């Protein structure tokens, strides 16, 4: 297995992801630079890490979405290759239209960093094969723009096709997540031809070692490389 970690100008969780895949999961791991037009041939999974690509200027992920590397990622996705976009990576996937919808600023307008209880909606299969269905896990979030938005038709469609991957368990009466206002409590969604793309706001790499409080996230990262 060879995991490619995308590196845009301003990515800042790239080294954290490298650490977990290399030191904890013992996978071969390499960085790919934003101006590459192709992924190395041996790549079997792609991670788009968190950060503030291009300063989050204009809209989070908007500028990164147009870098050459993203067209290579798009191709990889279309061939069914597994891709995970974490936090800013999720925003980039949405802006690149690889995933539907968009991430708006948190409803309270502030950056939020804390631990969230999250329910794994599609446990037992694919990237989530190491979780039980509807298992509740804890993952840290750290974002300013994590408020998932799509029009009602798109949301219904996501629901119908089992594409809602993760939900915050703490929501208001309208179903908006307390932490950021996300529609229907959405913390992550699947996409791509075989639900082979996962975009999520929480940071699984930050909960992948016992010294950091648990390994709820590790099972997801392992699921990406060994589906």
């Amino acid at each position: 297995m060879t995991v490619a970690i995308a590196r845009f100008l301003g990515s800042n969780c790239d080294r954290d992801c490298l650490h977990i895949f290399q030191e904890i999961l013992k996978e071969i791991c390499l960085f790919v630079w934003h101006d590459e037009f192709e992924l190395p041939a041996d790549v079997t999974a792609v991670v788009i890490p968190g950060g503030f690509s291009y300063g989050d200027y204009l809209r989070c992920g908007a500028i990164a979405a147009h870098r050459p590397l993203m067209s290579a990622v798009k191709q990889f996705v279309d061939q069914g290759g597994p891709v995970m976009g974490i936090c800013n990576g999720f925003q980039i996937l949405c802006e690149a239209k690889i995933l539907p919808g968009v991430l708006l600023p948190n409803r309270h307008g502030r950056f939020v960093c804390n631990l969230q209880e999250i329910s794994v909606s599609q446990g037992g299969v694919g990237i989530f094969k190491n979780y039980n269905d509807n298992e509740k896990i804890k993952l840290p979030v750290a974002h300013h723009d994590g408020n998932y938005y799509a029009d009602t038709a798109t949301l219904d469609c996501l629901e119908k096709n089992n594409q809602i991957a993760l939900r915050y368990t703490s929501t208001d009466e309208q179903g908006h997540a307390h932490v950021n206002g996300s529609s229907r409590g959405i913390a992550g969604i699947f996409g791509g031809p075989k639900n082979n793309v996962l975009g999520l706001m929480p940071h699984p790499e930050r909960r992948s070692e016992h010294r950091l409080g648990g390994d709820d996230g590790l099972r997801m990262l392992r699921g990406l490389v060994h589906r």
Partner: protein
Amino acid sequence: MRDLDITNSDHALQMGLKKTEFERIVQLLQRAPNKLELGIFAAMWSEHCSYKSSRIHLKKLPKSGSTVLVGPGENAGVIDVGDNLAVAFKVESHNHPSFIEPFQGAATGVGGILRDVFTMGARPFATMNLLRFGAKNHFKTRHLLSGVVSGISGYGNCFGVCNVVSDVAFDPSYNGNILVNAFAIGVVPHDKIFLGTAEGVGNPVFYVGAKTGKDGIHGATMASDEFSESKEAARPTVQVGDPFKEKLLLEACLECFSKNILIGIQDMGAAGLTSSSFEMADRGQSGLLLHLDRVPLREKNMTPYEIMLSESQERMLLVVKKGEEQVLIDIFSRWDLDVVEIGSVTDDGMVRLFWHGEEYTALSPEMLTKEAPIYDRFYEAPERAASSAADFHLDNFSYEDLLLKLVRHPDLSNQNWITEQYDRHIGLGTLQHQHQADAALVQIPGSSKAVALQIGCDSRLCGIDPREGVKRILARMVLQIACVGARPIGLSDCLNYGSPEDAVCMWQLVSGIEGLAEAADSFQIPVVSGNVSLYNQTDHKPIDPTPTIALVGLQEKPMQTATLFFKNEGDLIVYVGSFAHQFSGAELLFEGQVKPRYLSNTWDLNRVTSLSQLIVEQVRIGTILAAAHVGKGGLLYTIFKMAHAGKKGAHVQLDISMSEHLTSLFFSEDAFGAVISVPREKLGIIEKAFLNIAAVHVLGTVSSQELSCQLGRKNLLQLPMDIISHHYDSGLCEVVNGRIDS
């Protein structure tokens, strides 16, 4: 007035120089300076850059130690942590800019301290900050608080470094002068430590990073003067931080360090290109030739004067090994940054500024650094008023009322609204942040060890007694890091005071430095870096003395630590430390608006040392499950915090013999010690270990759902944890959302 026009003492005055200082310049140059030269002198001789009022006193601080690799004088201090690794750290103020524009002021403060650390060759891996705002109901406080916090969060989070401690307090003395002190720490291999020096004749000098604009011209002079209503109008263009650019700058610089192509590096901080070029030449005992017309500009038609004094952010000056230019250019271009050769190192001891091929002006760096004025300013203690502490009675309040008042105090209440805005986990090193333990514990990248970090100050104590106050601050912090099993290895300080031209403020500063020197000596902690911020006053009203201390400890076995929270019902709650029967600095007194004038006792720092060493031992062998020092808020508040963090309760059972001093036992801040929780069967170990060193008092047991206290059979206090927690959660929110009294 044009750059080369000759100036007089009135011009000097406008730039913040005294008449005598102007005369000294004329004497040094043997002629009157032109505007450009005067601007350079004004910046370099400002209080901010020259330390002219504090320099002779700063010498008193202990700076050396076997582990000190780089002490004060460089961009950050560096301490050996073994395994060929070292940590570089510093705390710095950005008070004045943050008052004018809280978001950008605080953001650029974070940017500056990060650059100070990574110019040493170190990759920053944690930050902290200390913030002081005016009264909670002052009409500016809310706006300043939210601006500063989002500025720090916006910059640090984007740059990609965790923030693990934020120490925030509100007091009317900061109504017109808020404080923003930012700390950063980085890790560097011993053989990759870089210094800000210009050496080797013929080596090229490069300008890298952002373009130069007209921002913050004369910022250093502004930071060396007090505010007044009239001066608010004439402020310089606000400096805007670009954390994205800084992140690129970090990665590019680290790549250069690893390739060994640099001789020296310095960031263009206060006084921009002026201080960086003159200081580098001075340290290298060399000269420099700079072509100012090659500096990348953001605006057309900037003059050499503006270029030399601009404080645009995210810029660096590098001296590169001759022949390695292309390697450097390739690295910076790859990171999308401007990189321009603007000059070279010479050996004639002069910094020569060229403009379109012609020498514009030349000055000797020595004139600006070593010849800078040094003042031994007059200082005098104020007259002491009689203490009013003794008259203070708390009899009108129940213990319940008092506790609820305390936990609702904005300084002591739940700080989540602030700390959740900081990324606390990036870098995968945060083992414990400030809400999880009495000090933050962050693993050093590339090592199995961790640093314990704490930043703090108690301006109330220092307002009462500036000397004893600072000793207590450091003593408390030593106990705090002991609670996570760490021993101190070094500190950085940021001395925030009023005008040195005021005899009382100057006395506070001198006493603060001497107190810090005494305490640091006693604990054997080297002071390796720091900052002095004076003139924190508006219309002659100075702030309370605020010597911020950032303490760094080392924890070789980070898994052998103690957290803040009570673990199991039935565990014993034990106090180890001294007792006080007074109230001199307590939070409660100030809520009652009574300001005592002196502290009732002096702490024996040797006993603090012994106590902290014992705590470290017992934490590491696992006897102690939870630990927190007793500081602001006192004993009962500490017990509440530990119970709250563990989602438990506490039952305190006091012996009837304690009945005389209950109020001071619960609420005084005049004693040093810690609350620990231990399994019942291990009490004997603790008692034996602390014998002859500190009193060991079993206060009660960990329970659930309520906090209760009994004296013999008498109920002193009984409150459901939910209710206390509700008050605890409300305090800061009241400031954030509260009504504004204007």
